[in-house]
């Protein structure tokens, strides 16, 4: 018995020794981790991803594209851009052509909630997966990565509701972007939900500037003439609302009128806060959105699910940029991303 036990101990000791020796040899040789790496890298190679933005050449799309392109080169799938240059018509044609070309994934930036909805449905029927970015269509597809516009709207509206309390005139101007765009529709819902419940808040103007700073400027000038005691402006996009800010600054009312808007957090936007043209930007952080897009691209390309089977939503975190936190971490420039 004793002997038997001794033998067992020796055997155990020996096997333990052998095991550690094996482990030691692995530590010197390394492990290829092929069972995890191969299923990640191999299926991605040669896949085709196409991005249809509103247009290239502006901060948001250039930022996302720079980040997505970097990962595509790294992982060996192709990344193409079809640039409709602000034309919904050209975008529709691009998507129609893509549906017959059958790429593995389309990344769509919607000009409004309706225009591409049918096409996205067709793409799904044709087995093409669709990832929507920052401006969603009324049709839900495999994934949406972007700001939660209703939440952006609530944040903006509540900031103004605080700034324009009962001791002020309570007069607020809403500066819309493109009336039919997702950002505009969802934000507008939140604004009205907040403002309509507060007795001291009066919405004195609700005009659309169509993303054009010069138009925003002209509207704001007229509004300031009508309501010299204006308390706040809630806008749709920093690139547009800088025009409203310029009109306010020129009227010498920068201290009286609080301008809150949203944007991608570029250095341009931050500069405009520094100059006092804007007071707050609710930033949806383009570099972060780019990273999340990359994650979603990989997840969708690797997934066995059929197009449209899974419907992911990822609302990107928001940062409130004011004069106090204009750090390099919060304000990015295109050169940083390239």
């Amino acid at each position: 018995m004793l002997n038997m036990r001794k033998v067992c101990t020796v055997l155990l000791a020996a096997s333990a020794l052998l095991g550690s020796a094996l482990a030691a040899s692995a530590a010197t040789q390394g492990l290829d981790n092929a069972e995890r790496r191969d299923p990640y890298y191999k299926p991605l190679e040669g896949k085709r991803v196409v991005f249809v933005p509103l247009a290239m050449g502006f901060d948001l799309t250039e930022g996302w594209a720079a980040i997505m392109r970097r990962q595509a080169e790294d992982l060996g799938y192709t990344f193409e851009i079809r640039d409709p240059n602000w034309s919904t018509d050209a975008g529709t044609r691009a998507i129609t052509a893509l549906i017959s070309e059958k790429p593995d994934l389309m990344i769509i930036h919607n000009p409004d909630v309706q225009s591409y909805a049918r096409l996205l449905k067709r793409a799904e029927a044709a087995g093409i997966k669709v990832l929507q970015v920052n401006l969603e269509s009324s049709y839900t597809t495999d994934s949406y990565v972007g700001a939660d516009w209703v939440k952006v709207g609530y944040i903006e509206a509540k900031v103004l509701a605080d700034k324009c309390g009962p001791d002020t005139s309570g007069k607020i101007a809403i500066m819309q972007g493109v009336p039919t765009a997702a950002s505009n529709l969802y934000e507008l819902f939140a604004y009205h939900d907040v403002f309509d419940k507060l007795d001291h808040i009066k919405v004195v103007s609700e005009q659309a500037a169509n993303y054009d700073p010069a138009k925003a400027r002209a509207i704001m000038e007229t509004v300031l003439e009508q309501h010299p005691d204006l308390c706040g402006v809630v806008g749709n996009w920093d690139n547009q609302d800088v025009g409203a800010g310029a009109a306010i600054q020129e009227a010498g009312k920068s201290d009286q009128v609080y301008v809150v808007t949203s944007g991608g957090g570029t250095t341009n936007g931050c500069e405009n806060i520094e100059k006092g043209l804007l007071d707050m930007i609710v930033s949806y952080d383009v570099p972060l959105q780019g990273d999340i897009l990359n994650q979603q691209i990989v997840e969708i390309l690797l997934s066995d699910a059929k197009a449209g089977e899974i419907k992911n939503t990822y609302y990107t975190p928001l940062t409130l940029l004011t004069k106090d936190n204009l750090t390099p971490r919060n304000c990015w420039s295109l050169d940083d991303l390239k």
Partner: protein
Amino acid sequence: MTSGMRLSQEGIVAALAALLFVGFSLTLSNFLTVNNLISLVRSVSILGILGIGMGLVIISRGIDLAMVATMVVASSWVLSMVQSGTPLGWALLFGMGFAILVGAATGILVAYALVPAIFTTLAMGLIVYGTGRAYLFQVDVQNAPSNYPWFSFLGTGNVLGIPMPIIAVGFLALVMWVLLRYTRFGRFVYATGDNILAARIVGIPVRLLIVAQFILTSLIAYAAGIIMSSAVSSMSTRIYNSTMIYDVLLVVVLGGISLSGGRGGVRNVLVGTLLVGVLLNGMTILDIPYTEQNLIKSVILLFALIIDSFINPRDEQTAQQQQGDI
């Protein structure tokens, strides 16, 4: 140019503007204030500047559809050069050089290669915009520099309470009026517009004249861009994709400068611009939604054109001209 009995289009538009003006003054409480009137004129001042430039080429039977492209690209280039460290003075000179180059190229194509202005400038607009986007700057919104007070003054300053953009329109209108009315250049422009063959036969250097006009128009577009970028503290090349060029054409044609050339003057542009200004200002005060504003604007413009075609029907001479009217 207008006989006493016959209502000119300019008269109709002026009457329409006056009617709206009185209407708004009576119904909107803060419409008839000095400040609102200043902001009214100011909001259409860029349109006015572009309209004066467009008016010049249209009088000589040309058209320049590249104006908005030249405006946004030249001024965006200037801003982007300043951002990367070029002194503003030099950047402005380069921008001016670019505008001159565009104008000269257009003029040469129209005058010497005899390509119709409408096609030349349509293509030139795309070329200018494409060149800008591909080679001259990275992103389509450029911030204006804040460390040059005199640059900010161009768009946001006041002289005797009058904003600089209005002074710029006024100055340009005066210069153009003198140029068209009292100089040989101006008379030649009308002659060319009226009948280019006759103008050539009597010895007017029509080709040089056409090149000079396009350069001048291009420079005016550039000036509008600089004032605009100073006024809104940035420049967005997206304006090229907007309907601005049609708005410019509208104020010119609406004011009564005929697309068949040889008629009209600076006053027509100013009247057309004012009508659009009164309309936009009133509708903004009334807080009319964007799409309805566009609808109302178009209906009023169409209305003015219909009245015009009743009062001044197309005549035989217009019909016989080489290019017809557009």
